[in-house]
């Protein structure tokens, strides 16, 4: 049967089946099982109403349980079994941890987790704030939002053209290399490649240091706080310290590195930096998402708070950072976590652009490698469980919030 025809049949059967199921099961409940007439009419109506929600819920619950909830446990079990299906305990995990590619994936994933949500949210916030103030803002928004519709693979092709490299003797067709070859080491190169990035990295360093200090300060003052919060503060400060260290290294690099002027660069084959070129693709896609949501949140900021700030003599930057941003913090967190989840699942970009070569491997692609190329289901499942473990805090937090909302 032709697949297109099959699709049509499935649409008809699926839609008709759904409607038929809901209609007939309701009919059966009302007319046959508990008819609303006769001696027990009242009791029957009550019984029918107690069952009806489950009729409505049944298909969705069955699919959810079978396609998402059950696999979590099945994968957990698979991660404890060997190739022959026998229980092997933690062997898959120990073998996985011993692999250098796994450590590389984990490190890269951490980098992705820090850089992509932060950059997307920051760009999104910037775009939201700027486009809200101008007449053609909606057009600008729609153009920045557009990459949302493009598949990760399509975006990878788009950026591969940008990162393309040709021999130095012929014209470059990759935009990045063409720009790179414009620099020759003169004053312009100093300004754009050393001073500007240097200032940027230095300000990032200062921001991280300040944030770390803010997180740690209550602990140093010996404020009485729950133990979990204290642990959170220590972890936060550790992350900040790591970032400060990293930024210091970058700053040193920006100032002292010899830049290979006039040489076309193979961007995707430079270890460490190539991960950032891959991240750019995801940032490009996710910024629109962040912008749309943050722009709605910014519009929801009560005007009287802003007016009050203006009357008190606040400048635009103070209004933005001290009035608006704190009030939309909740939305920023939501955007951040949503992008974090996307980052953890990112697979297509790495597969299409480098396939994990040149030290760009990430967990999702590592897992795909193990499961479907090496056909080592145990280790693949162990990798999948690692992703699950990284998602779990967000899962718990989401459920917690939803429960709060329900009450």
């Amino acid at each position: 049967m032709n697949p297109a025809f099959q699709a049509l049949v499935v649409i008809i059967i699926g839609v008709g089946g759904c409607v038929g199921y809901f209609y007939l099961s309701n009919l059966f409940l009302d007319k046959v099982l508990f008819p609303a007439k006769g001696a027990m009419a009242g009791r029957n109506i009550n019984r029918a109403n107690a069952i009806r929600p489950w009729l409505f819920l049944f298909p969705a619950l069955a699919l959810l349980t079978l396609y998402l909830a059950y696999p979590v446990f099945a994968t957990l079990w698979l991660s404890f079994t060997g190739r022959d299906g026998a229980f092997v305990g933690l062997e898959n995990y120990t073998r996985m941890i011993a692999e250098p590619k796994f450590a590389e994936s984990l490190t890269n994933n951490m980098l992705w987790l820090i850089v992509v949500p932060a950059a997307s949210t920051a760009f999104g916030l910037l775009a939201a704030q700027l486009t809200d103030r101008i007449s053609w803002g909606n057009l600008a928004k729609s153009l920045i939002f557009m990459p949302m519709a493009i598949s990760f693979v399509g975006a990878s092709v788009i950026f591969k053209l940008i990162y393309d490299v040709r021999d130095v003797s012929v014209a470059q067709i990759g935009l990045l290399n063409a720009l790179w070859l414009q620099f020759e080491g003169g004053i312009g190169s100093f300004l754009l490649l050393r001073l500007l990035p240097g200032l940027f990295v230095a300000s990032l360093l200062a921001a991280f240091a300040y944030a770390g200090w803010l997180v740690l300060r209550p602990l140093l003052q010996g404020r009485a706080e729950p133990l979990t919060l204290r642990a959170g503060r220590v972890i936060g400060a550790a992350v900040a310290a790591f970032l400060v260290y990293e930024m210091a290294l970058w700053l040193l690099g920006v100032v002292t590195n010899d830049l290979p002027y006039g040489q076309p660069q193979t961007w995707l084959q430079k270890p460490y930096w190539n991960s950032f070129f891959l991240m750019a693709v995801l940032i490009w896609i996710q910024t629109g998402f962040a912008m749309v949501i943050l722009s709605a949140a910014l519009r929801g900021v009560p005007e009287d708070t802003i007016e009050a700030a203006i009357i008190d003599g606040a400048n635009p930057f103070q209004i933005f950072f001290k009035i608006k941003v704190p009030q939309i913090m909740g939305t920023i967190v939501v955007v951040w976590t949503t992008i974090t989840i996307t980052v953890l699942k990112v697979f297509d970009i790495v597969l299409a652009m480098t396939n994990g070569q040149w030290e760009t491997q990430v967990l999702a692609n590592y897992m795909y490698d193990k499961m479907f190329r090496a056909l080592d289901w145990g280790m693949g499942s162990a990798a999948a469980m690692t992703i699950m473990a990284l998602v779990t805090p967000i899962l718990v937090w989401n459920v917690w919030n939803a429960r709060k909302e329900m009450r």
Partner: protein
Amino acid sequence: MDNIAGKKPALLWAVHLSVVLLVFLWVVPTFGLLVSSFRTGDQISSSGWWRSVQTQESQLPAIRIRGEAVERDGSFVIAGDLFENTGAEISRWGINSRDTEAFAAGETADLGDGQSLTVQADGFFELTSETSLEGARLPRVFVTASTPPDFTLQNYNNVLFSPLAGQSIGQAFLNTLTVAIPATIIPILVAAFAAYALAWMDFPGRALLVAFVVGLLVVPLQLALIPLLQFHNWIGIGKGYLGIWLAHTGFGLPLAVYLLRNYMVGLPRDIIESAKVDGASDFEIFVRIILPLSFPALASFAIFQFLWTWNDLLVALVFLGTGNDQQVLTGNLVNLMGSRGGDWEILATAAFISIAVPLIVFFAMQKYLVRGLLAGSVK
């Protein structure tokens, strides 16, 4: 307030400039691909797409002389045009790959063996020989020419209608459509009923179920691949469309139920209660009142699910198989990147075909997409 909130003219000017810069940065990558898909392979590899509207001076690939010889004044002559109406203008040319700029336009080159060749600036050539050219190997010409901007639809024609190494993009396009449409429609119905029950029906355990759905929202679908493949093999559907439709339905449901429930909770209670008083059953209320009122939410989820199923790679790779006739557009594109990584005219065109449909859906239905995003995230 507008005239005081930091809206000094100078600052507004800076805002405009920054937005222009941002939009430029965000549009240029896609635009580059679009332009490239309308250029020939030679053009793409000889100059960057941003120079495609300029007249290019570049060295063209070698052209072998072709044509019928005619006898004229005792010698044999082949005359013709090196180009087919491209409007290129030759500046230098050569007959030897080591010296490709030996002659200026209009000069005559002696090829030895009594042959000589003249090439004019407009590409017109004349090859003269004292002996018959029958069966002789005709010379190649290397030209440096400036070509005016030229765009072609040939790439689209090639990619869509002539299979490349057994991989037809037309077939992949149909496959993607076959995957995406049922996988978009079916979850909507299933989710709408469940969302109604979660929003408007009272039963024990409702809060728990909502929490369950919210929890499943973030479960990575990577975990589901192997168990579901085993399950599909066990019930006998194996790899194929039925499996991928079911998988996409399952993976799309948490978002669908969550979005629709959030929307339905906000519908006015009066309407539903007065319908109940008038004797409408839950089923009737759902079909006659809730479904029509929820149209914006249904539309926004439909767009999400369509974009997601159309753009998906992983689920298609795992549940549909990797054979040439089972490929979806994304899978096809990944294969092309591997096998034809340097042929940008093919890659760019194939990529653009694959992103055209989502882009059209996106621009046509953006309003609903934004509304759906906001319903899902800002509560």
